[in-house]
Structure formats: C-alpha cells, structure tokens
C-alpha cells in the first residue's frame, strides 16, 4: 500500500513540475490534460487507500526520510494515512481533479494557462502534505505550502493595476494575494509557537508521541498550546478577526476559489483542530471558545453575505459562515461531524464556485449580480448545478448539506449551548436567503445584462460533465453519513446525540428546515421576479454596515496598515537616518572638526610655537607644584 501513498502524494507534484516545464511557453492544452490525469491518478490512489483503510481499519504509516535533526529535535518526512487523512485526501484529490478538468475549459483563453496548472497542482501537493503528514512540522510544511500556492493563485492575474477600495474592495489581485499571505503569516506565528510549546514539553513533534504525552502535561501548557495552534487555524480558516483576506482572495481565478478558498485550504484549520483533538478534548475552555467563535463567524459572515452584490464574494462569505459551522462542531467535541460537514461542504461549495465560474465566463468576468438576471435561458445546466449546490448549502433535505449542517445544529442543542443553537439556526435561515438571493438574481428575473451588451453562453460540455461528480455528491453525500460515522470513529472520538436530543430530533430538524425554507421563500419574494431596489433599505445603517463588512477592512487599513507604513517611514527617516546615523557621523565629525579647530594652534608663527612651549612648561610646573602641595 505504501506505493499508493507515494503515488497519491507525489502525482500532484509531478503534475506541477511537468506544467512548470511549460510555464513560460504559450498555452498547451495537453498540459492541462496531463495534469488532470495525474490528479485523477492521485485521486484513484487516495480512493484505493480509503478502501484499504476502510477495510482494515488500520493506518498506513511511512517515513520517507529524515528532514531536520538538531539537538534533540528530529523531524522526518513521515506520512500517515488513517481515517482522517484519507478522508481529506479523497476529498481534496476529488475536488482537485474536477477543478483541474474544469480549468482546462475555464482558463481556455488565458495565456498563462500552463503556469496556472503548475500552481494548481503544486497547491494540491502542499495540501496533501498538510493532511498526510505524521507530525506538526510536516503539517506546517503543507500549511505554508498551501499559503504560498494560494498567494500565487490569488495573484495569478498579477498584471492588473491597483484601484481604489471604493472601486474594488480587493484593490488588485496582487494586493489581495499579499494580504492573504501576510494575514496567514500572523496566524502561522501562533501555530509555530504552539509547535514550540509542544516540542519543549514532549520532546517530539510526531503526532503519536505528542498525543501520548498529553496526559502528563500541566493544564497551563496544554491550554497555551491549544490556543496557539488554534490561532494558526484561525488564519488559514479565516476566522474573525483574520477573515478579511478570504473575500479579497476572490480576485483569483474562479477555479482557485473553488478549490482553495472553498473546498480545501480554508478547511485546513478545521482539519488541524480535528487532528489535534486529543489536545482540544482536554482543554474544554479552548474548545468552547472555538465553538463560540465558530458560531459567531457563521452568523457574522452570513450577515455580510445578505447584502453583497458580488457573485463570488457572496459565496466566499458563505464559505466563511460554513467554516464557522465546522468550528462550532469541532469545538463542541463533534469532530466527526465537523469532518463530515467539511467533506460535504467541499463538494457543494466547489460546485457552487464552479457554477459561478461558468457565469463569469459567460458574463465576461462581470461579477455584480445586480447586472445579471435571467441567465437560466442560456445557462440551463449551470442553473441546475448552482441550484443544487445552493439547496445543499441551505440544508434542504435530502441533499448533503442538510445532513451535515443539521447534525451540527443538533450538536449545539445536544451540548445545551442554546445560544449557539439559536444563532446557528438563524444563520441557517440567512444562509438559505442569501444563497437563493444570489441564484435568483443571477438566473431569474429580467435580463439586466443586456444593457451591457453581453451575450452569455453556456460553458463547454466537458466542463459541465466534469462538474457532475460534484453535483452528484452534493446530492447524495448525506446518505453516507452512517457509513462515514462508523468509518471515522475508529480514529476520532465518537459523538452521539444524547437520548434527550434524539427525542427532539424531528422537531429540531423541522425548525432548521423551516428557517431554511423560510429563507428561500423570502429570497423568492424579494428577488424571484427580478431586481427591485429598495432605496430606503440600502441607505439604512445596518445595510451599509453589512455592505461595508462592518467597516473592518477600513479599520484595518486605517489603524494597522497606514500606521505601520507611517511608523516604518518614521523609523527610517527619523530614527535610523536622523538619530542613529547622525550620532555615528557626529562622532566622526567631532574628531574631524576637532582637527579643524586644533590645527589652528599650528599658526605657522614661530612665536606662537614658543608660546606653546612656555605654556606647556608652565602648566606642567603648575600641576607639579599643586600636586606636591596636595600629595
């Protein structure tokens, strides 16, 4: 089985390097094809591994080679394929494969076609390293690797100029890329600290060693480690307050958004919490904090999605919101539910994004849903895909989202955290509303795009076919909940609803469903017949607050970026050049000007020289006389 591990892991790398070979040549379709094939290979290998793990119930643990060894630290390139990682691997490779194929069509006209595949495959490789690694350092490799790939891919259209935030909140792809990278770095520092804490207290970074040592550690240390690691997770999964980068990351090509900023990378944080569940199990206060933050973000993001006009940003907010759900589950101890939602979400969210990509492709990169409408005629399949995905997202049975999200909400109820439950339920309603607001505004109603002279057309056939696995999975994934449950709890702690909850399960489901359906209906009422703008509403404070993302980006710009730049300039111009350097030069000049002054004693006049001798003699005599008197 080891060779499948390596195939699964390295096929994307090979794909990336292969594409990189043609990175600077003009578009070559076969690059995309081969990359997709390699990704498919990786998916197959992952599937085989999944089957193997499912059958045997055991894990495959390989150590490729030693990486860093210094002092007592020993970090290998070790990979573990167990229930959790194999789930992730399968999801990642599946979505990746679809996205690769999709990209062949989507990036059709882009002159950096080959480069795109190189980056995309590199991302998959990093993600695989992230999920497969058997130690924290290896996780960190993947963690940073996906960060860089995300940077590359967000900034893929680097040649676009910077514009003002009013025109485009993300300013430019390169700006958004940098923002994403830097914000993630902030979180990575937390993660590093967490790693250090674990190393100095357990002497290793291997998951098994670390987790085995946890019972022997003091609570304070565990608390610190849990917090630090979670800070890392917050960055990657864009949790408040580090969330701003995710919406800006929509500057990247849409397949990228689908793969990285919806299905895989952003879930790494959740993955980390799930992976480190032994740690979080013993730190309930941290877990509770995670759950609360997750719930908050779920609501917070959903609220921003309500009013947004940007097709991709709406989906991005929804991703944020769903990540919140996952954290809520993980924080409440329902790790397997979190993982399940992660997987299900990956499918329907990727589908949603790819659908959005189709729309963009058709609309010549127009993203404002207020300028769309009535696309269902020309883009039937896309409408279906996006509808299905939105239904799944809204949690309408029997689609995947219903099962997973409902389980999370149930968990919140089960844990007795009623406030969380209420918020999550409300959020579910909001989710349904904004999803369908978007769908209706895009596909229903009058054809507003005509005013802009756009002639939309459906995506290539093969692309639509490639998307179908996701659509199918979005529909049916929910039915595998039970299987998944038995499979995953071999590794993860089991989480069952209590009797009490079982009692109310139908009621709870109904409430959630009611909210979801209510959201959809509301959306239909408001936007089903076309765009009716409500000036009063749009000018209200809340609307503006939401539209401006609670003014958080502006806050960051005004109170962090600008002061940072200002202080930096001040430090350079005032401190470094004025104070420090001037002091140094001043000391040198002191001697130089001292020389200029003292050379004046050298008048050239013999008389003054003789004077100096006389003075010298006198001073010496005087001091001699004084010192004899004193001494």
């Amino acid at each position: 089985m080891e060779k499948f591990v390596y195939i699964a892991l390295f096929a994307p790398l090979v794909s990336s390097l292969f594409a990189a070979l043609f990175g600077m040549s003009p578009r070559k379709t076969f690059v995309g094809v081969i990359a997709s094939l390699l990704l498919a290979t990786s998916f197959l290998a992952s599937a085989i591994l999944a089957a193997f793990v499912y059958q045997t119930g055991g894990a495959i643990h390989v150590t490729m080679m030693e990486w860093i060894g210094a002092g007592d630290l020993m970090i290998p390139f070790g990979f573990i394929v167990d229930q959790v990682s194999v789930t992730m691997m399968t999801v990642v490779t599946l979505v990746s494969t679809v996205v690769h194929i999709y990209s062949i069509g989507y990036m059709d006209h882009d002159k950096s076609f080959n480069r795109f595949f190189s980056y995309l495959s590199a991302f998959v490789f990093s993600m695989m390293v992230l999920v497969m690694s058997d130690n924290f350092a290896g996780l960190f490799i993947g963690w940073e690797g996906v960060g860089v790939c995300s940077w590359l891919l967000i900034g893929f259209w680097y040649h676009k100029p910077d514009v003002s935030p009013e025109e485009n909140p993300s300013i430019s792809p390169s700006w958004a890329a940098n923002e994403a990278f830097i914000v993630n770095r902030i979180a990575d520092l937390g993660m590093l600290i967490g790693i250090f804490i674990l190393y100095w207290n357990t002497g290793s970074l291997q998951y098994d060693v670390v987790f085995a040592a946890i019972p022997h550690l003091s609570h304070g240390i565990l608390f610190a480690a849990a917090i630090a690691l979670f800070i890392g997770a917050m960055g990657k999964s864009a949790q408040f307050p580090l969330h701003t980068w995710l919406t800006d990351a929509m500057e990247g090509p849409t397949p990228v958004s689908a793969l990285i900023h919806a299905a895989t990378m952003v879930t790494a944080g959740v993955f980390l919490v799930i992976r480190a569940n032994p740690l979080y199990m013993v730190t309930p206060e941290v877990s509770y904090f995670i759950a609360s933050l997750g719930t908050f973000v779920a609501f917070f993001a959903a609220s921003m999605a309500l009013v947004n006009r940007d097709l991709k940003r709406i989906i991005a907010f929804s991703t944020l919101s769903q990540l919140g759900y996952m954290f809520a589950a993980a924080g409440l101890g329902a790790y397997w539910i979190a993982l399940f939602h992660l997987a299900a979400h990956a499918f329907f969210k990727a589908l949603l994004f790819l659908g959005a990509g189709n729309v963009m492709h058709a609309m010549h990169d127009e993203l404002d849903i207020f300028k769309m409408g009535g696309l269902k005629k020309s883009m039937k399949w896309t409408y279906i895909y996006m509808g299905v995905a939105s239904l799944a997202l809204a949690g309408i049975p029997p689609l995947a989202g219903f099962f997973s999200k409902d389980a999370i909400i149930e968990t919140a109820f089960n844990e007795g955290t009623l406030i969380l439950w209420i918020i999550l339920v409300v959020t579910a309603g909001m989710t349904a509303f904004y999803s369908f607001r978007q769908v209706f505004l895009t596909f229903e109603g009058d054809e507003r795009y005509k005013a802009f002279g756009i002639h939309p057309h459906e995506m290539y056939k093969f692309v639509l076919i490639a998307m179908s696995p996701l659509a199918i999975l979005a529909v049916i994934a929910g039915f595998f909940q039970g299987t998944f449950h038995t499979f995953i709890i071999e590794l993860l702690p089991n989480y069952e609803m209590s009797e009490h909850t079982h009692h109310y399960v139908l009621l709870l489901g109904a409430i959630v469903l009611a909210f979801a359906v209510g959201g959809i209906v509301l959306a239909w009422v408001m936007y089903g017949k076309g765009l009716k703008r409500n000036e009063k509403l749009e000018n209200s404070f809340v609307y503006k607050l939401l539209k401006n993302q609670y003014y958080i980006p502006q806050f960051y710009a005004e109170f962090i970026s600008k002061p940072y730049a200002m202080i930096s300039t001040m430090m350079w111009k005032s401190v470094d050049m004025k104070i420090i350097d001037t002091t140094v030069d001043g000391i040198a000049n002191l001697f130089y000007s001292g020389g200029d002054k003292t050379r004046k004693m050298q008048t050239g006049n013999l008389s003054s020289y003789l004077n100096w001798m006389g003075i010298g003699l006198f001073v010496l005599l005087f001091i001699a006389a004084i010192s004899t008197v004193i001494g």
Partner: protein
Amino acid sequence: MDNILSVLVFFPAIAALLGFVVDKKSARVYGISVASVELLLALWLWMSFDSGNAGMQFVELVPLVPDFGINYYLGVDGISLFIVVMAALMTLLGMIGMSIEKDIKNMIISLLFLEMTMIGVFVALDAIVFYLFWELSLVPMLYIIGAWGGPLRVYASIKFFLYTFTGSLIMLVGMLFMAYLYHSISGIWSFSITDWYALVLPVSYQIWLFLAFFVGFAIKVPMFPFHTWLPYAHGQAPTIGSVILAAVLLKMGTYGFVRFSLPLFPDASVMMIMPIAVISIIMIIYTAMVAYAQEDMKQVIAYSSVSHMGVIVLGTFAMNAEGISGSIFLMLSHGIVSGALFMLVGVIYDRRHTKLMSEFGGLASVMPKYAVIFGIMLMASVGLPLTIGFVGEFLVLLGFYKVSMIGTILAGTSIIIGAIYMLSLYKKSFFGPLTNKANEKLLDLNGKELMSLVPLVAIVIWLGVYPKPVLAPIDNSVKALLTFMEEKAQTPEAKERIVVSTTMKEAR
C-alpha cells in the same frame, strides 16, 4: 592532504598575485577558474571531513612568534566547515554573474584577496591570525565598494572600513587581555583559541571581555544600533560587493560569537542572554519595519539582512543545540539567499541603472524567469518550509523558545513583517501593469546570470528539503560545544541555562 586548509587560504592569494600578470581581457576567465578550483578544494575539504568528529580537524600549527604566543594555527570543525564552502561558492557564483567591465582585472584580484581573508577568518584558530584575516578582509572590500560603487561610494566605503575597524580594535584589546590572563595563569603566552578554551575565568572578567569582543562582533554583524554602515555599504556597493558582504562578511560577526564568546565566556554569555535578546529583537522588528519603508530595492534587502542577522544572533544565545545549530544553518541560508537576492537586484540594475521600486512594476510579464527566481529567493527569505530559509529560522525560534516565550513571539514577528516588506517589494516591482515604458524592452536573464543563479536555486531547495548533510556535522560540533560550555560554566544559572542535549548526556 593534511594541509588543505593552508592551501585553501593561500591559493586564492597567490592566484591574486599572479593575476597581476594576466591580461585584462582574460581576467574574468582567470578569476572564475581560480574560484572554481577553490570551490573544488573546499568541496574536497567537505568530502574528507569526518562528520562524526566534533572537534577540530585538519589542524595545522606552526609557531610564528613563540615568545609572544602567536602561532599559525588553522583548523576546521562542523561550525566553520560550511561557511568556508559557502564563501568559496559565493565568490565563484558572484564572479560568474558579475557584469562589471570597468577595471575588471583589479576587481578579480581584489575578489581573490577577499576570498583568502574570508576563508582565513573561518579556519583560524589563533586569535591573532583570526584578527589578521578579519582586518584584512576590510581592505579589498573597501576597494570594491569605493571603486565600483554608486555616487556615495567613497563615503560608504570609508564608513564601512572605519566603523568595523574601530570595533575590532576594541576586540583586539580584549584578545590581548585574554592572552595576558592566560599568561598570568599558565605562565605561557598563547593566542590560540583552543588554549584559551581551557581557561576558567572569574565572572567579572568574563563580562568585560565579553563586552570587548561584543563590540567587535556587534559592529560586524551588524547589531542595532551599530547597523547604519550597512545600508550605505550595500546601497553603494556594486552587486558583487553586496553579495560577498551579505553572504560572508557579515557572518564573521556571528561566527565570532560562536567561536569566541560562547565557549570562552559561558557565564557571561548566559548573563548577557537577555540584553542581547532585547537588542536582537529590536533589531529584528525595527529594521524589518525600516526595510518596509525603503524605496530602493537593494536597501530593502540590505535592511532585511540586518533583520535576519538579528535572528541569527538570537539563536546563538539560545544556549541549546537547536538554537545554535539553527543559527549556524541560518548563517548559511542567509548567505545564499541574500547573496542571490543581491545578485537579482544587480540584474535589474544592470539593465535599468536604477533600483528604485517606483521605476518598476509589472516586471513579471517581461522577465518571467527573473521573476520566478526572485520569487523563489523571496520565499526562501521569508522562511518558507522546504526552502533553505525555513530550517534555520525554525530551529532558531524553536531553540529560543526555551529561553523566553515572549521573546520568541516578538522575534517570530519576523516571519510576518519579513513577509510584509518582501511581498510589498515583489508587488511593487513585479506585479501590476507594466506602466514604465523603459521596462517594456527588458531582456530576461541571460546565460551568465542563469549560471550564477540556478545553482543557488538548486541549493535553496536541496538544503530546504534535505538539510541533513550540512546540519548533522554542525549539530555534532554544536552539541560538543554546549557540553563543553556546561562543564566550564561556574555559576549555577549558567549551568542551568546551557542545555546539553540528551545524546551527549548519555555519552557522559
């Protein structure tokens, strides 16, 4: 070949002397050939180096002035070995990539002399010989900066020379005092470092001596607030000068800490951990912020060097094998990465004769290869895993965590603000639309430049993925060093702080 170190040291010097005879047009090829041979010799040294032996190898000892205890005493251990190899490598690559045409012969001769001094510093085991090469290295550098530099070159070169010279004279007094102490205890005059190691000094003496050495090393590193010569030197120096300066010359300071300060004054070193950590952290954050404010590409990298050197110093004073090995590895990686970055800036400077970022923008579309290599080096510079930059930085921060968590968090901000200035540099220069007409016709990297940069890229990735061949001998020597320090330390605080790794404990 037991005297390979002497060969390594004097081969370039002799070649430089003979270089006066070589015709101007052939000078570059001559220089490259000599540097290649030197690199091969260095690699041979590495091959014949016994990684299992933590002590000094290839030792050569010839008494020069026995009455005054000065010996020609060379040796190499895991700590110095790779810096020597790197010095040889960077000299060669720098020469290959060099675009200077003016007075090329003088440049080649200076470079070869410089190579001698650089290698000499790292293999010297006699304080006076060390000092000799240390000072001598200033001279060719002075010439390189002053003769081929920018408009302020004379100011910059003199500032560089005088600043370093002043610091090292204080260090010289420290050395003399050390020799005096050795003499008054043993009755023998000796300047050999290994003899000095045996000397257990009272803590009060250690502190003063530590400070004397510190001044010399700190200016060379350069540590805040003694760093202001560096931006000038880099800003004005020609590409090759910056490459060598950043890659090798700065490492002399940090190497000095490891070679002198730690083993000679273990108690003082432990007492000084906190002050030095504070300076280092200020240095890391402050200069990184200053780097962000720069308008000149080269200055960004110059200030980033200072910031990275702060990390190196921090690691040195972590007092555990992880930190010190990491800091030595970081010396190597910083040498390679910053060297490469300076070369890259040189590439664009050769084409456009400006380094101002505002002049650029959108370079990625006209110079894709250049952008790729720059990007790789940038990522190595910000410490991306699987590049050479990560290993050292990770180990240093990991090691220093043992000393102070707050300190580590503050120092760790370097990974954030490092990313900020590097990415903003990259964005300003490479991303965005191609607005400046002058940039439209820029040529991508040519063969010469690729030849000098691609090996560096290869090393960046090779040592990022598989650092063991380098890290293991370093670690071996560092562990021995720490064990030695722990045994020598007198104060309980020092004994406690100095972490002897478990393998060494078991060996005991």
